[in-house]
């Protein structure tokens, strides 16, 4: 059980989303870094697909009247527990009855995930407990958490151990690795040189629908084309030439040329971009991207 004493900027109930319904215009959604949520769930003995909280930019203050077992993964936020115990990331945390967990701002990055043993027991809508804000369904009443909200947990079914988790090694040093997109050929050399050669800044108007970038405009020969299927990580270039990286709750079809697609292994990095961050793009081959996507979190028991 969680009582929300103070809501963060955008605390959303998320699981692994609702893939398989894009034909209805419904994006898969779900945690922006599904492996990080799955790892948090593993740390508390939940199935990977249990619902937890995705917390962005400014965190909530949460009270656990009955105590519980929790875990945090993703960006490290300035955080404290009313018990005075340290708030470790990537570790099983045992919370005392009545304990208050306060998350403030991220030390770096943008999003973290909080799992609670038993998982958050919100209704499943179209096969998922994930919040879809643009249409206002899923999660906790289709909206971000507010002060005064109370969330309940399910009944734990699995055994649990005290664990520490490690994310896959990150070797790209900030660049977003992309596969050249289906309309890369529609851009002239000047446009391609801008996109692949100059840095972009993350705009404040970014959210789970898309990360909007500002920088050297990417010029193209044709600004619109017949609507095509797109997925999170697809980089669209609208007529003004400022790239938009489609996010988890972005539309399933788009009518702007797609210059590139962020590889699956770098979607966790996409999840950590915040306004003001610099982004550079670098291409890699499809086969290499498939191999990188196979990297896994690892776990060991705490002594």
């Amino acid at each position: 059980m969680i009582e929300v004493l103070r809501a963060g900027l955008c605390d959303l109930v998320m699981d692994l989303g609702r893939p398989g319904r894009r034909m209805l215009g419904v994006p898969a959604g779900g945690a922006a870094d599904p492996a990080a949520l799955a790892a948090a769930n593993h740390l508390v003995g939940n199935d990977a697909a249990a619902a937890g909280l995705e917390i962005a930019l400014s965190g909530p203050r949460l009270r656990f009247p009955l105590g519980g077992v929790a875990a945090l993964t993703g960006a490290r936020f300035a955080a404290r527990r009313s018990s005075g115990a340290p708030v470790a990331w990537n570790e099983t945390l045992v919370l005392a009855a009545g304990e208050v967990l306060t998350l403030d701002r991220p030390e770096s990055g943008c999003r973290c995930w909080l799992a609670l043993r038993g998982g958050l027991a919100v209704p499943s809508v179209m096969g998922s407990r994930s919040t879809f804000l643009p249409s206002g369904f899923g999660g906790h009443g289709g909206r971000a958490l507010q002060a005064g909200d109370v969330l309940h947990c399910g009944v734990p079914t699995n055994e649990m151990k005290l664990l520490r988790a490690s994310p896959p090694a990150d070797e790209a040093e900030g660049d977003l690795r992309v596969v050249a997109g289906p309309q890369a050929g529609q851009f002239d050399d000047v446009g391609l040189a801008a996109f692949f050669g100059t840095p972009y800044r993350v705009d404040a108007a970014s959210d789970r629908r898309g990360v909007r970038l500002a920088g050297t405009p990417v010029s193209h020969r044709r600004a619109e084309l017949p609507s095509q299927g797109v997925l999170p990580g697809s980089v669209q270039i609208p007529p003004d030439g400022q790239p938009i990286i489609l996010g988890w709750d972005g539309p399933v079809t788009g009518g702007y040329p797609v210059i590139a697609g962020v590889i699956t292994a770098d979607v966790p990095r996409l999840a950590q971009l915040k306004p003001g961050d610099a982004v550079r793009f670098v291409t890699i081959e499809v086969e290499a991207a498939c191999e990188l996507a196979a990297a896994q979190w690892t776990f060991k028991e705490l002594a």
Partner: protein
Amino acid sequence: MGKQTTGQPLVASTCWRWVGERGLRVETGAMTLARYMLLISKNLTDVEDIIPADGSLLLILRRSARVSPEVRAALSAPLDVAQTAVKGKRHEIVVDYGGAAGPDLPALAKRAGMSEAAYIDCHAATEYTVAFLGFQPGFPYLQGLPPTLQAARRASPRQQVAAGSVAIGGRYTGIYPTDGPGGWHVIGRTHTVLFDPQRAAPALLMPGDRVCFVPA
């Protein structure tokens, strides 16, 4: 850098491109829906989802999956005549045209050189086919819009378009299921609920369905 990544030919007669390393965009032209139906019927284990769109399909592969022989076979398998003639349900949708419900109607009618009444008559006299759903959950791209009614999207999108708004965007007419931003020209509004996540079939209109608009 920036070169097209196409790899080895997927199937001889198919034009395809990568969208990331999990998205496979395949040109399907007029056979988009028929090819979609065939692919879905194969229950391809390596494919997480398929998005039908305007003349193309996007196959979304499962994480780390490669393009399997089964996927190649399904993309090149011949379509039989019955599969190419997908005929869905017929829907009549009652619309309040013009006024506050359709703020862009006067300008669109003027541009088309028609009276508002003639524009409405023309829009409502046509039977449309749902080509695909996109943009918002349950948003239908309706094909069959008479050329005289077609209009490029608004130069600047509206921040807020009301749910139920009937609109014109390029070659298509469509209906916004949810309140939100939108760049199409709004000509009317319906009270019909297009998308309800709690329904067994959340989207009222499905690709292949036929739609007629009835002035209120």
